[in-house]
């Protein structure tokens, strides 16, 4: 039940590699890393969830917060590498309509 975060500067902005489980206990750590990155102006933050095997609404809430923060700073937030389980949660909650996941967004698909 741990979370490991690694950030890497890219040409367009920052890539955050997340590994482990995102729940009520580990979510604050993710928030503390992610939100400041999205507060930079005109940048792109890509969150790689390829090694995340569990996420619940606490984690989803952080991505909503990060998306709002990115938008208000003229930046972009994208998520990549989600497995089927994690994608299902983004889909059930409708978050795949507002967040760019693996280069796709089901805009207004509902």
């Amino acid at each position, binding site marked *: 039940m741990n979370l490991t975060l690694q950030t890497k500067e890219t040409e367009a902005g920052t890539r955050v590699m997340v590994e482990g489980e995102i*729940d*009520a*206990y580990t979510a604050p750590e993710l928030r503390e890393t992610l939100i400041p990155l999205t507060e930079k102006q005109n940048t792109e933050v890509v969150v790689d969830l390829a090694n995340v095997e*569990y996420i*619940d*609404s*606490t984690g989803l809430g952080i991505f909503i917060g990060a998306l*709002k923060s990115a938008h208000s700073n003229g930046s972009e937030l994208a998520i990549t590498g989600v497995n089927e389980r994690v994608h299902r*949660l983004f889909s059930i909650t*409708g978050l795949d309509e507002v967040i760019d996941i693996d280069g796709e967004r089901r805009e207004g698909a509902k």
Partner: protein
Amino acid sequence: MVNTADVVEMTVPSKAEYVGVVRLTVSGIANRAGFSYDDIEDMKIAVAEACTNVVDHAYSNGGTIKFSCSIEEEGLKLVVSDDGQSVDVVQLREEIGPVDGQDPVGELKEGGLGLFLIESLMDEVEISSEAGVAIVMKKFLQRDGVEENADGPRSADKQKQ
């Protein structure tokens, strides 16, 4: 026929670090009960959401999360309860729902998805609030020929994607 359900109960402090303990317990029991991988993952999330609600909302000065799991012939009955503040269940149910893609990003809410996920991932959900809050969640074991029966319990509010 006599059916005596096995019951597993545990009480943990109402703190985020113990939510994962309850989640792993559910995983172990559901695995033993013969559920599929997806159903087990659904139950882990639902129970974690219920526990997280307790951690976030029930107590102002600390308390406990009570968890009970009945292993019944039809499936698992999971109960997460607290004896903290009561809530208006009717109002609560009106407020839950998914994110609306039409809403401007700035107006999206960061919370409130937990109960919606519980209702989406479990087969039956009851919320009651008298002294504290209790969430009763059921997941039925799928058996051949049973789960597609229109009169069966799974048809009620099944939401699989």
